[in-house]
């Protein structure tokens, strides 16, 4: 199967995610966060934040949804059953708090093949409602090829 090299640079429609207070708490509890700024509204406000603060890795919640159209894009021919998450990188800028509206755009950046494995790279760029960058993610997936 040929690699979708001609699709490098393809961008997917921006996805808007409204950050909810209880979603931050649910996420923080699922990963075992104990920092009160992520769990306790009064503590967050007392520390000077407008609302409950989202932990850095909350990026997964607002950005990964932007992936679904790409993962199931027939033009990329991604064999979902043989997909493995190989590596991940995030850069963070502006903090995210409950009430923010985050827009994430995803781009297909690279695809290559070696040793029977296909390596895909996607980049997500997430902006808040003021147009400030909150995070940039580099997502590296490995797809095992059928023998």
């Amino acid at each position: 199967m040929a690699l979708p090299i001609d699709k490098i640079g393809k961008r997917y429609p921006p996805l808007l995610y409204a950050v909810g207070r209880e979603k931050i708490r649910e996420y923080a509890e699922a990963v075992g966060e104990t920092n009160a700024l992520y769990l306790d509204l009064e503590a967050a406000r007392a520390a000077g934040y407008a609302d409950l603060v989202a932990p850095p890795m909350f990026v997964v919640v607002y950005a990964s949804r932007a992936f679904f159209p790409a993962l199931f894009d027939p033009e990329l021919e991604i064999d979902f059953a043989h997909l493995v998450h190989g590596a991940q990188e995030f850069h963070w800028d502006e903090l995210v708090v409950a009430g923010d509206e985050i827009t994430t755009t995803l781009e297909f950046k690279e695809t290559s093949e070696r040793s029977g494995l296909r390596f895909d790279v996607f980049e997500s760029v997430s902006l808040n409602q003021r147009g400030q960058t909150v995070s940039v993610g580099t997502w590296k997936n490995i797809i095992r090829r059928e023998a």
Partner: protein
Amino acid sequence: MSESATPGALAAGDSIALSVTPDRYVTVRYAGASGDFNPIHIDEQFALEVGLPGRILHGLWSMAQVARAVGAAAGDDPAALKSLSVQFRGMGVMEQEMTVSGSVSGVEGGVASVKLEATQGTTKVIKGAVAEVRVG
């Protein structure tokens, strides 16, 4: 949480450590919280059918443990983490202690560089992790 590092004042050579034992339902809660419902994480039979030893942890859950270790060492400042890069290696499993360990390799221009890994027993779940932490 680090024993040696002063929160928010990471210096070269400081070490970072965190231990956590994921319970057997953590992947179910994390699937709901994150939106990643890949059945290899939540369906034991499906996981076995595709050749896994059973349900495995989400890689991004393990990455969140690395982020948590760094955040705690940086004095719980939510804005401290500037970047985090990880490589996923061995499969993480439930009901086995995961240890995140790392050390500050240097501080330059108000940013500390931290090298970390996450292990369960002899399995490296995350290797080659690099965090940049704002300390200025």
